[in-house]
């Protein structure tokens, strides 16, 4: 949407990431993976299962430091990072609101969260425990937590898997709605092509393991015009361009 220049992007240059199993077998998960995400841009990492998408996110989140290469985070604004994981990962012993507030830095702890909760349709759920929510609602709470921190960059790791398609589609619209309200640099991992085409400015296509960038697909259509028919056309032209990728 609003692209705030190319200043201070996310720059990723991972030379190699290798996993060693207990038996000493080593598997190269990523090799020479490099890409950039501009500020305010929504980018999808797209590739087959097991190509190292989640591994890439874990490295960028600082959860995995055992790799060679480097990356630099966007500067300016808050230097914070937010993540929406494959599962909601809410603390079951804290209410929805407490879960969101706990993720906030000290100076934002008392922030007014009403608009955010309203936008995500969670107003009535603030005092509930995660165990009382459906999976769809729990994912909304996870989105609320991520956006409440006003992060410099947002990472999403297939946040809409393992829920039925109707709920997932609703959540995608909600994600776009919060994201347009506070445009944030976002990098989302997915293996769902239509999802990527619906949400992203650009799609970075990864090869099968060891993962590296095969090419980049710019969606180049305003999100308001991405009707089902338009998405069909986009996915056809995407598949023409990347025949090798599932």
């Amino acid at each position: 949407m609003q692209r705030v220049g190319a200043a201070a992007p996310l720059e990723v240059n991972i030379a190699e990431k290798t996993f060693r199993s207990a038996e000493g077998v080593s598997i190269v998960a990523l090799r020479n993976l490099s890409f950039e995400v501009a500020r305010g841009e929504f980018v999808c990492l797209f590739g087959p299962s097991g190509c190292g998408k989640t591994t890439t996110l874990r490295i960028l989140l600082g959860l995995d430091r055992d790799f060679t290469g480097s990356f630099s985070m966007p500067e300016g604004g808050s230097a914070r990072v937010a993540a929406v994981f494959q599962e909601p990962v809410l603390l079951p012993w804290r209410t929805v609101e407490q879960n969101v507030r706990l993720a906030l830095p000290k100076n934002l702890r008392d922030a007014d969260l009403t608009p955010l909760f309203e936008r995500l349709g969670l107003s009535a759920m603030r005092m509930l425990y995660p165990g009382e929510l459906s999976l769809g609602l729990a994912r909304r709470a996870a989105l609320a937590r991520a956006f409440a921190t006003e992060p410099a960059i947002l990472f999403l790791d297939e946040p809409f898997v393992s829920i039925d398609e109707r709920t997932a589609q609703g959540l995608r619209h909600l994600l776009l709605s919060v994201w347009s309200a506070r445009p944030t640099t976002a990098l989302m991992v997915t293996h769902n092509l239509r999802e990527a085409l619906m949400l992203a400015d650009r799609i970075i296509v990864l090869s099968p393991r060891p993962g590296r960038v095969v090419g980049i697909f710019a969606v180049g259509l305003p999100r308001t015009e991405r009707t089902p028919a338009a998405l069909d056309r986009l996915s056809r032209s995407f598949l023409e361009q990347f025949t090798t990728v599932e």
Partner: protein
Amino acid sequence: MNAREGGAGRPGVEAAPKGRKAPLAFAPALTVAASLAGFLALWAFAAAAWPSRALPPPLAVWSVFVKELMSGELPWHLGITLARVAAAFVLAMLIGTVIGILLGMSRRANAFFDPWVVLFLNIPALVIIVLAYVWFGLNEAAAIGAVAVNKIPNVVVTMREGARALDQRYADMAFVYRFSALDRIRHVLMPQLQPYLAAAARSGLAIIWKIVLVVELLGRSNGVGFQIYLHFQMFEVAAILAYTMAFVAVMLVIEIALVQPFERHATRWRGRAA
């Protein structure tokens, strides 16, 4: 496959549960009362059928209890024993929890220290008490320390299991959102360890108060254990039973008035789950 998708994930807004636990605490209390009355009746019958100084009837025990209560002897010794139980309990829980979590988190530390844990688990309580008195003298610190050392290995084993069961996803989430160390302990670590803490505390209380009596018997000149030893030498079974009953009653009250409400509070998020 299809059945699983059947709307389970639909955002059911109205799904918030209204009906909490129905308050029917009456029937269980009645059962407990009947059970205790049955026990007393059996005791009274046995004491009447085989009259002996070794088995006084409940009423005789009760009158000794009232006498000791009025003279102030019983509250004084009971208070001292309770203080020792509390001190040893706090000490054992604190030290055992810290060691247990460290061992549960570090495989290497556990590999090294596990034999120590097994060793201490298997030293008889009596040996630890005797050695504590020999090494540190017949004083309060030795008494309480000996009780705590007896309990610490149990706490370590329980809390080590708890630390091993910690969910890495919560730790990752706390890392990404930069939780402070205090928040991590309070909101991520302790709630996950709570069931293990409760288990350790439960069994801890039961073990500790029994060991405290032995410690008092061997090397203290006050407390319930000392009193029981005194009455044992004079063969006053009624007094022994009076002290025992009083102590058990106090521990029951602690369990019902402190431990259970705390647990209910700590697990409130579970009870209401839809």
